[in-house]
């Protein structure tokens, strides 16, 4: 009897390990994550306007329909990226996601100031390779460190009323995301 209880107890313990392992490994094996869904419709290192979500189709689940959205699928293998996103009249934000969808940085037009949001995106080794003086002169330019070499940048512009959607989309059309 005791023997069976011990076998079951071992099973419960092993089950706990299985649970933790599956939770931790799932992001690496997911084939339908945001990056995988957007890969067929977005080129690398350029902003693409996503179609507005509708009941029939949506690029990603739970998209806010009040926003125009442009996505840049970045790849830092060749070097750091430069970003310039014009600010739309109402509200504009930029969110950086790792390959597995972790939002590691987000900024909106208030913290960016001026009429365009300008940022540099690079990996930690690339930042360490920056010449020292350049690092100082770049102090006024925000540098974001990416935890993964590939990932997604989402530029979003709010259309507070339906009539302003065109304006929001136009602002994002001139958003730039390119290697330095």
């Amino acid at each position, binding site marked *: 009897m005791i023997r069976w209880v011990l076998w079951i107890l071992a099973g419960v313990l092993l089950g706990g*390990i299985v649970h933790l392992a599956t*939770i931790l490994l799932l992001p690496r094996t997911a084939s*339908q994550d*945001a990056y995988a869904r957007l890969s067929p419709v977005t080129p690398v290192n350029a902003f693409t306007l996503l179609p507005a979500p509708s009941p029939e189709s949506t690029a990603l689940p739970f998209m806010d329909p009040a926003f125009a959205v442009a996505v840049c699928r970045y790849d830092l293998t060749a070097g750091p990226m430069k970003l310039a996103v014009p600010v739309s009249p109402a509200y504009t934000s930029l969110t950086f996601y790792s390959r*597995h*969808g972790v939002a590691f940085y987000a900024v909106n037009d208030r913290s960016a100031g001026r009429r365009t949001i300008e940022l540099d995106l690079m990996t930690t080794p690339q930042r360490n390779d920056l010449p020292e003086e350049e690092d100082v002169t770049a102090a006024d330019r925000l540098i974001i460190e990416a935890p993964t070499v590939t990932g997604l940048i989402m530029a979003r512009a709010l259309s507070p009323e339906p009539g302003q959607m065109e304006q929001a989309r136009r602002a994002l059309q001139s958003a730039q995301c390119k290697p330095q």
Partner: protein
Amino acid sequence: MRLLLGSFLTFMVAAAIGLGSTWFALNRGVAFGAINIGAWSARPRTGTADIDPYARAGIARTGALPVGLGDGVSFIARRDDDGRALDGRCDTVLRGTTPQARYFTLTLYDPEGRLVANSIRRHGFTSQELVRNPDGSIDITIGPRARSGNWLPTGGVERYVLVMRFYDTPVGIATRTGRDAPMPSVQMSGRCS
């Protein structure tokens, strides 16, 4: 023989518990660090690099991208204040004040995150579109039949979820209670079609 049976039992128990709890956690949601205010629930840390492993697994599986914390905070309601699952065949009233934010949006989705088809093609409101009461509070009727005032159509679907997103807001990781973030009440009335 006994060893074989025993280890078989162990592996069966491990698989059932391990995979079952993973399935349960991802489908029912395990909310670490969630702010619960009335019917609303938010997980601001999900929009940062400190996201917990469960939320991470969840976004990888569904393909949704969380709102970054530097951008805003997203609150979701699946039930009304009395714990009844939101039913698109009934009238539901959203009433009260909202936390401080430059803009907010309210959107109605099916449980999988798709917009719901309806006759007037309205899927939500932005803070600018809402008609407000003289004291600044809001009343929104969510239901299958047209209403005067702020009407958000459900298209008559059985289940839906509401998402309120606050952009450029002080609401965040430090927020604990409804005093920091006064969320509107969600009341499903008995009137169903």
